[in-house]
């Protein structure tokens, strides 16, 4: 079989080929075509990760109310009760399935710091970072004013852990960089192999601060929230 053309690579990566046996045979023998397929799949994944938006719970509730409430008010109550059960179940399930160890968070912290593009929004203050999260996270959280403290907000991004969106804010103190993770599901606490960390819950959200600074610094920062 000769090299794959652009359309074959695309259709293979998109899972649109009914019979892919011949193509898979060729991919086993041809590094150039295999690379092209990997690149195509990588682009798909990158687009998916970059393009994801999350609506707020407020909007979801409003739409649900308008969709259900207008026609059958009694059904809305039943649906709300059922939804509460389901959501409760999902949150419980998600809590079990997500970020089970503090080590995972420490790894995430280290990976982000080592990344060439650690944050998606750069900041000189909370007024650029907080609005950026709107529509990208299903919840909102307060980014405190840090002017007049030794800390400064560097930027933010959304990270995904086990299918759950987690707000990430990078905070600087001198030459050190700290990570703040915020999620609706409980985030793990505990030993992080050399990184200090402080964990707390507020208004139904889980916060974790991670960094290679003394614990007292993290406590001082925490007090701003």
């Amino acid at each position, binding site marked *: 079989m000769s090299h794959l053309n652009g359309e074959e690579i695309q259709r293979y990566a998109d899972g649109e080929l009914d019979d892919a046996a011949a193509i898979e045979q060729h991919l086993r023998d041809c590094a150039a075509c295999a690379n*092209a397929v990997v690149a195509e799949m990588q682009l798909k994944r990158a687009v998916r*990760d970059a393009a994801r938006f999350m609506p707020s719970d407020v909007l979801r509730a409003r739409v649900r109310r308008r969709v259900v409430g207008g026609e059958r008010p009694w059904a809305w109550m039943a649906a709300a009760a059922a939804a509460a059960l389901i959501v409760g179940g999902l949150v419980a399930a998600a809590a079990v399935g997500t970020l089970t160890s503090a080590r995972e968070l420490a790894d995430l912290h280290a990976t982000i710091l080592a990344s060439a593009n650690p944050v998606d929004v750069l900041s000189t203050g909370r007024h650029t970072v907080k609005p950026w999260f709107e*529509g990208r996270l299903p919840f909102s959280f307060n980014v405190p004013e840090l002017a007049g403290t030794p800390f400064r907000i560097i930027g933010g991004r959304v990270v995904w852990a086990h299918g759950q969106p987690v707000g990430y804010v990078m905070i600087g103190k001198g030459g050190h960089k700290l990570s703040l993770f915020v999620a609706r599901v409980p985030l793990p606490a505990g030993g992080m192999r050399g990184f200090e960390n402080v964990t707390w819950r507020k208004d139904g959200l889980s916060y974790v601060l991670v960094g290679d600074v003394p614990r007292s610094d993290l406590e001082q920062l925490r007090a701003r929230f």
Partner: protein
Amino acid sequence: MSMSFEDLAMPLFPSLYGYARWLTGEAHEAEDLVQETYLKALRGFGSFREGTNFRAWMFRILRNTFLTSRSGLRSMASLDEELVEEIADIGTPETHFVNRANGEALRRAIEGLPLPFREVLLLSDVESMSYKEISEALSIPVGTVTSRLMRARRRVRTALEGVR
């Protein structure tokens, strides 16, 4: 028992919101668009035939609602020259690996795509729709889905090359 509108429609909520956000490029307009879509779909639910693709039907309503809005009409203007079909690429394309970490550059590249390319890319890569489903949602032939998707990805790659 057949499923109610709510049972069918609410699970699509995050997807429809994300798509609306990419069509409008703005959070508040996206919220309005999603709400209007649900109300229209609810009113038209009687005409929805069971057994046809509900997800494609919902996306079609959202898109048509957007296209008849002011910003939708604006984004459709001056598109004619974009849609002249390029000759399909024959032969093995050069391999460009995408740096996954650079989310902001990628988002800008998607934003910069003309609407017909942006929407096939989002429906394929974010919503994991099949070409057939995309063709139903956008009311275009499957062949057009294939060629637009190819051109969308080529443009995104070119845009990312530019920022390297």
